[in-house]
């Protein structure tokens, strides 16, 4: 099952998540899944490592299932000085991907399954910020020999 999401606050839609493509994870191997994100022009989200402790980081968190996330790899953030910031802020803009490397858990049952994840983000433009949101994602997974 693929989940394509367009998220909005009131009338504002700023983040589009592309449908997640099925991955096949060998019992004794690894596989990668990519979450492709597209932000509306003029908007940014905080990176996974924002400089300001109060800023809400982009965070992809996977639930339990037949495979487990070995690592979540975020793109290299942009350091930009925005109209409201005295110092550069660590952000993502435009189109970018968050990649997760999976391996099968011990004793994983072969076959089809679904992994779920939560993507937490908070978007702003130069003048205003939108409330933080958590997006539910579903990733079709096949565990194979």
């Amino acid at each position: 099952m693929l989940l394509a999401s367009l998220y909005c606050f009131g009338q504002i839609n700023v983040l589009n998540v592309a449908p997640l493509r099925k991955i096949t994870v060998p019992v004794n191997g690894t596989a990668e899944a990519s979450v492709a994100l597209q932000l509306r022009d003029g908007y940014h989200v905080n990176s996974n490592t924002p400089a300001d402790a109060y800023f809400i980081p982009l965070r992809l968190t996977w639930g339990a299932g037949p495979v487990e996330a070995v690592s979540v790899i975020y793109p290299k953030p942009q350091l930009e000085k925005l109209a409201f910031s005295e110092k550069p802020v660590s952000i993502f803009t435009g189109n970018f991907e968050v990649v997760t490397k999976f391996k099968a858990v011990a004793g994983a049952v072969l076959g089809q399954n679904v992994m779920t994840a939560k993507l937490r983000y908070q978007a702003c433009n130069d003048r205003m910020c939108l409330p933080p949101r958590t997006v539910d994602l579903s990733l079709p997974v096949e565990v194979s020999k």
Partner: protein
Amino acid sequence: MTKVMPRLAFSAVLILLLAGCSNNSGGANVRASGDRKAAPAFKLKDSSGGEVTLASLKGKVVLLNFWATWCGPCEVEIPWFVEFEQKYKDQGFSVLGVSFDDDGWISVRPYMAAHKINYRIAIGSDELSQVYGGVDALPTSFIIDRTGRIAAKHRGLVDKRDYQDEIIKLLADPKAAIYPETGDDAPRFALLLRPNQRP
């Protein structure tokens, strides 16, 4: 001479038009008194546990600022509001900051201390956002006149001068010294506070 006069007249009209378009023309964003609507009543708790209602602010010009600790543009405005509170408090002005942080005072208290906030802060709710027209972005601020009516609204970061001009204009308004019936002590909306919003 006959050629010069039309040019002068045109220039004068152009100057007047440009002045009318400026955001910095002495509170130009302030709605005419007859166009202002009553600000929705609210009942909140401030950081010291005191109750703050719109009615309790009657007779004052109020800058009601919806903000959050995670909002960069909101942070820019805070020193301005600290200055306004200090500068205009004695003239009947008050800032009320309403935070929309999900974890309430856990984030807001240390932030208040770090930013030396000298005005009242309360924690907002979805209900409050709804009665104020569905606040979908921060900062969003309302300038409320002495009679409890919304004189200006700003969505997003604006110039400090805009706020200042509006405050000065409303403080100087001699016609707005009496609080109307809409500002009674019984709030029209019972705004529920989540447990983490209690001071």
